[in-house]
């Protein structure tokens, strides 16, 4: 059976060149980067070269890049670390309603610890209004954290404008760029970003490794204490093979950014067009243009998301959904809810996230198998029938 992987926002396969770059650091060059001998020095060299490679992608100095276990840890460090170190200045944090759970749950934790959190609303496309950010800034605001490209819809926030507002008010600005890093041009100077979170496995790198950029001079407490690794900001023996993999992935992504953008744009545009011609009552969630080219979030009226995932899975196609069933929650996606998408349509949403190895044949295969699936499920649906009668 043909297999088509369209869940690159969840994770990606490791690029062969990335794996190749990593392997020596599990074998001959296995040293601990803190050791003084040659084994250690080899590891240390790889670590510092990797830092340089990651810094280059975002126009930062290598001394401002710290390696972590992934996007979630980086988000936790940005939120909690800044909150802890700046509590004498204030205890107010501004974020948005459509953040990744790593940010939202960190905010929830901080709220319990006595911090005050404002969750900015979004419009029907999922965009934060810079004017609304400005209105919500207070004297005791210490941190603004806004996601770059959304993981569910791909919608891209006006980061440069938001960063400018943060800068004008002397407030730290963090952005969760897990879905954007290496795929969309990022410049921490131009965008006024003080911290940003990176994950390797969204970028054809290995799982369990990521990075955080922290602008020089930012007051931040560390969360993991121990040895003097990562200049005492994040203790623990560095995952050198993983870090080398992240750096290689970043390097490849950076080099291929423009061609990949065009590749993904061709695939998703064609997919959406063909799908809309073949299936009635489909709706795109998120901004049609201000979005990451690889992600399409589509609602199929009258059909629940998980039942589409199961049916596509039986045809070898892997996708994700914002329905309550798949999130394990009792409510549909918080992102689609914040966009005020009708709850039934939010339950009917499917995220197709394309990647570098997808082809136009993949597009045609999914467009070929999907209409029958939707038709079958709609014929069983009590709400699709009733909506047609109206």
């Amino acid at each position, binding site marked *: 059976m043909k297999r088509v992987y369209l869940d690159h926002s969840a994770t990606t396969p490791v690029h062969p060149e990335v794996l190749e770059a990593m392997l020596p650091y599990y074998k001959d060059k296995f040293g601990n980067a803190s050791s003084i001998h040659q084994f250690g020095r080899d590891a240390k060299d790889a670590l510092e070269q990797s830092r340089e490679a990651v810094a280059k992608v975002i126009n930062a100095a290598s001394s401002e890049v710290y390696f972590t276990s992934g996007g979630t840890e980086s988000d936790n460090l940005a939120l909690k670390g800044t909150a802890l170190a700046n509590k004498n200045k204030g205890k107010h944090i501004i974020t948005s309603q459509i953040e990744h759970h790593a940010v939202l749950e960190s905010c929830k934790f901080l709220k319990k610890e006595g911090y005050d959190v404002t969750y900015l609303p979004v419009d029907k496309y999922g965009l934060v209004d810079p004017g609304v950010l400005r209105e919500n800034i207070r004297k005791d605001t210490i941190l603004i954290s806004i996601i770059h490209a959304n993981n569910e819809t791909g919608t891209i926030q006006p980061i440069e404008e938001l960063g400018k507002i943060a800068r004008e008010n002397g407030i730290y600005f963090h952005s969760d760029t897990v879905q954007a890093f290496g795929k969309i041009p990022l410049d921490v100077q131009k965008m006024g970003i003080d911290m940003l979170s990176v994950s390797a496995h969204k970028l054809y790198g290995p799982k369990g490794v990521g990075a955080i950029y922290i602008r020089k001079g930012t007051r931040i407490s560390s969360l993991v204490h121990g040895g003097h690794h990562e200049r005492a900001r994040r203790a623990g023996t560095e995952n050198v093979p993983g870090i080398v993999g992240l750096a290689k992935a970043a390097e490849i992504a950076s080099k291929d950014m423009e061609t990949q953008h065009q590749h993904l744009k061709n695939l998703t545009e064609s997919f959406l067009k063909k799908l809309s011609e073949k299936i009635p009552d489909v709706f795109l969630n998120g901004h049609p243009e201000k979005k990451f080219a690889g992600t399409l979030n589509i609602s199929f009226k009258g059909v629940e998301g*998980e039942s589409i995932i199961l049916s596509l899975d039986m045809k070898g196609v892997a996708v994700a959904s914002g329905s*309550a069933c798949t999130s394990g929650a009792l409510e549909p996606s918080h992102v689609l809810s914040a966009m005020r998408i009708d709850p039934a349509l939010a339950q009917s949403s499917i995220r197709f996230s394309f990647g570098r190895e997808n082809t136009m044949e993949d597009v045609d295969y999914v467009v070929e198998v999907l209409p029958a699936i939707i038709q079958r499920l709609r014929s069983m*649906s*009590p709400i699709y029938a009733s909506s047609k009668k109206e």
Partner: protein
Amino acid sequence: MSYTAKVMDHFTNPRNVGEIDKPDGVGEIGNPVCGDIMKLYIKVKDGRIVDAKFKTFGCGAAIATSSMITELVKNKTLDEAEKISRKTVADALDGLPANKMHCSNLAADALHKAIEDYKKHQNKTA
């Protein structure tokens, strides 16, 4: 999370999908916020359920439990049908994932509503 072979069978080849023309009882349950909506139709003759059909908007478990209950109730007396519980349905499917036991196991509730609906009409005509 993974479903049993029986759940996948009922999801892939659901039994008794559709509506009954002039049903004797209809049970509707669920709402779009939680993600599952089920409509169950029953036909009753001499105190027995002679036919049952369903329409469901929901996940794999919701569709499989709907399909399974239409098989379980056929030719049962109303008293017997009333004893069918959420657990009966889940057991008949060789179990459901833990997170689905509550949110997507609505078929028994829809059945009880359909029987209630039938009895309400009986009282009116009596």
